[in-house]
């Protein structure tokens, strides 16, 4: 028998659970389990009223364990941990049993079976709770410094933001100069400033702040430690190669993008006069008066959209995503071309125009000034060939005229090339950052946690996480500033205590566990003159990978000890009612 005092609450979840699980039967079946002193149902356990009731029970009945059988812990683990805390019960003596996603929703056609499964699951939860001990979160002091990788517009802006809230910054740029792609842009929308001017302005601000150290021609070559206290080695390649080590509390990755490089022959690429949007933009910036290409005035331009973006599935390594900035950039370039020469003829061959938000105005302006837009089908892309008189010949089926085929003669054909992920292989290895299907860095959740990664303390911003324009890059840089500052300004972080622990009495340091740990969290230490294993609490993720490898049973996962798991299995296989 147990001398524990556990409260068990079975949730109806409106009808989400109770429609398929007989919750009253579950209560009846578990109320005599060892340790249980209170067992009730609630229509919504997460409601304020139900929470109050639980708190009252914990206090009045002097409970030392809590089980809530409800939805997924993903939704309400912290809600109920907080209920325990408010009632004076250690939050780690709480167990959430998932009888919604894993039971009622999975067995909507079998009420009897679902009810039996719920009983077993709740019993297992009670068994685990019987063996819980109060745990304290692992507290780690944070170093008030941030490493920013990449000094493009996002990296520079993030550096200034962090410095202004009193955090010291190491800004590392691989190239010899800062500014990334934006530094090469001409007049930008909507402010009309040149990219170079924007970058120079930011660089001036960076120079004014002593707490920012900028390294150019430099690369991150090693990272150890964990959130709050990373140790990073930076290799500086000028003039003689040298390494320096820095300690930071967080890392922001802002490595940007590469422009898509068309393949030879793709939409005529390689023919005289067929160029990428970037090359055309450069031509616009560098031409003082009229637009000239190869000594000849440009009178007719054809733009082809979605080059290197939204590619079909039949292609190998297709870029399936919309680069979402090229429509705007192309229309913007067309307007600049009209400024140079109002008589110029511009034909835009698009698949869908995606000039969202205020960029719609650019689109309307281009239309008003006489640009014509022809819509082509992805399965029948335009053809670009050499025509007579040094002109290019573009043939396109225009869907807006019911698929009629037109021939356009052009001086230049501009390919609206999108963004592709930068080749960052080494950095990916060093930081262990996950890369998505399209090759960009992955955030945890695009809406809820847009700049955080699965590596605690490592943030991403700018175009390294997907195509973005400059203002979107800056917005995400500031989000990364806010996120990293929020962990560093507090001075410490609290990590889950549900991690591995070594019993030094049993451990004989064979090193097998250290090899099994995917996070390199196990180190060696001295214990009473012997070598034993030690778990670095800041690094351990509590994955449990090390536990079964120990032949001496010296490892245990707090909160999921061997004894707890065994007791849960026993409870699961117990006869029903």
């Amino acid at each position, binding site marked *: 028998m147990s001398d524990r005092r556990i409260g068990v609450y079975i949730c109806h979840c409106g009808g989400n659970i109770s429609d398929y699980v007989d919750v009253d039967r579950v209560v009846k079946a578990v109320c005599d389990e060892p340790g249980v002193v209170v067992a009730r149902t609630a229509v919504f356990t997460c409601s304020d009223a139900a929470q109050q009731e639980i708190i009252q029970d914990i206090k009045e009945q002097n409970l030392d364990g809590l089980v809530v059988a409800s939805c997924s812990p993903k939704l309400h683990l912290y809600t109920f941990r907080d209920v325990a805390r408010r009632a004076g019960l250690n939050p780690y003596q709480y167990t959430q049993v998932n009888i919604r996603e894993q039971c009622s929703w999975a067995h909507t056609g079998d009420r009897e079976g679902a009810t039996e499964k719920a009983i077993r699951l709740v019993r297992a939860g009670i068994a685990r709770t019987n063996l819980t001990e109060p745990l304290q979160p692992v507290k780690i002091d944070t170093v008030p410094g941030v490493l920013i990788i990449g000094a493009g517009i996002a990296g520079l802006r993030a550096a200034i933001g962090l410095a202004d809230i009193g955090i010291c910054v190491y800004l590392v740029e691989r190239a010899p100069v800062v500014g990334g792609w934006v530094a090469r842009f001409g007049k930008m929308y909507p402010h009309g400033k040149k990219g170079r001017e924007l970058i120079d302005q930011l660089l001036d601000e960076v120079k004014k702040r002593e707490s920012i150290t900028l390294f150019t021609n430099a690369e991150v070559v090693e990272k150890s430690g964990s959130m709050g206290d990373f140790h990073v080695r930076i290799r500086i390649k000028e003039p003689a190669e040298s390494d320096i080590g820095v300690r930071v509390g967080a890392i922001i990755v802002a490595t940007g993008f590469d422009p898509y490089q068309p393949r030879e022959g793709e939409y005529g690429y390689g023919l005289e006069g067929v160029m990428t949007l970037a090359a055309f933009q450069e031509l616009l910036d560098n031409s003082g008066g009229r637009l000239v290409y190869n000594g000849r005035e440009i009178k*007719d331009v054809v733009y082809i959209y979605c080059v290197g973006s939204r590619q079909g599935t039949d292609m190998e390594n297709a870029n399936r995503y919309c680069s979402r900035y090229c429509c705007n950039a192309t229309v913007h370039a067309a307007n600049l071309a009209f400024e140079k020469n109002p008589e110029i003829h511009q034909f835009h061959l698009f698949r869908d125009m995606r000039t969202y938000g205020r960029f719609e105005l650019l689109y309307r302006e281009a*239309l008003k000034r006489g640009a014509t837009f022809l819509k082509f089908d992805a399965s029948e892309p335009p053809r670009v060939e050499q025509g007579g008189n040094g002109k290019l010949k573009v043939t396109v089926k*225009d869907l807006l005229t019911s698929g009629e*085929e037109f021939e356009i*003669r052009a001086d230049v054909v501009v390919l609206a090339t999108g963004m592709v992920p930068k080749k960052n292989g080494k950095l990916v290895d060093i930081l262990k950052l996950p890369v998505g299907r399209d090759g960009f860095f992955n955030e945890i959740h695009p809406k809820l946690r847009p700049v955080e990664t699965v590596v605690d303390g490592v943030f991403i911003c700018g175009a390294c996480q997907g195509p973005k324009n400059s203002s979107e890059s800056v917005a995400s840089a500031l989000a990364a500033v806010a996120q990293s500052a929020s962990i560093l300004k507090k001075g410490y972080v609290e990590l889950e205590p549900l991690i591995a622990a070594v019993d030094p009495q049993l451990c004989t340091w064979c090193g097998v566990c250290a090899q099994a740990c995917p996070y390199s969290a196990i180190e060696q230490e001295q214990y009473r003159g012997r070598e034993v294993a030690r778990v670095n609490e800041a690094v351990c993720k509590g994955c449990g990978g090390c536990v079964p490898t120990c032949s001496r049973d010296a490892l245990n996962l707090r909160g999921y000890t061997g004894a707890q798991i065994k007791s849960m299995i026993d409870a699961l296989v117990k006869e029903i009612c």
Partner: protein
Amino acid sequence: MALVNPDFVEEVKRSGRFDASACMNCGVCSAVCPMGIELLPRKLFRYVLLGVKDRVLENVETIYSCLLCRLCEVNCPAQVHIAENVRFLRCYMNKKVFKI
């Protein structure tokens, strides 16, 4: 296949009387036209905008069968001056084709 002819576009532009740049090809005009002129105005206007002169000239009859009732115009969500545009095209035809 038809050849896009920017000179024709310029000729039209210079007249200052034709404007369909706001047309978004929604098709409302064709849908409400009592003459059921499928081509008018959205396709025809596109020919003009693109500079496909041959196609415009091929469609003399269509251009003249418009009633100028403006049913399309009051319904056009982009406020394209459809009737005025049709009138311009008639003038153009009169001059270029019928030499009046």
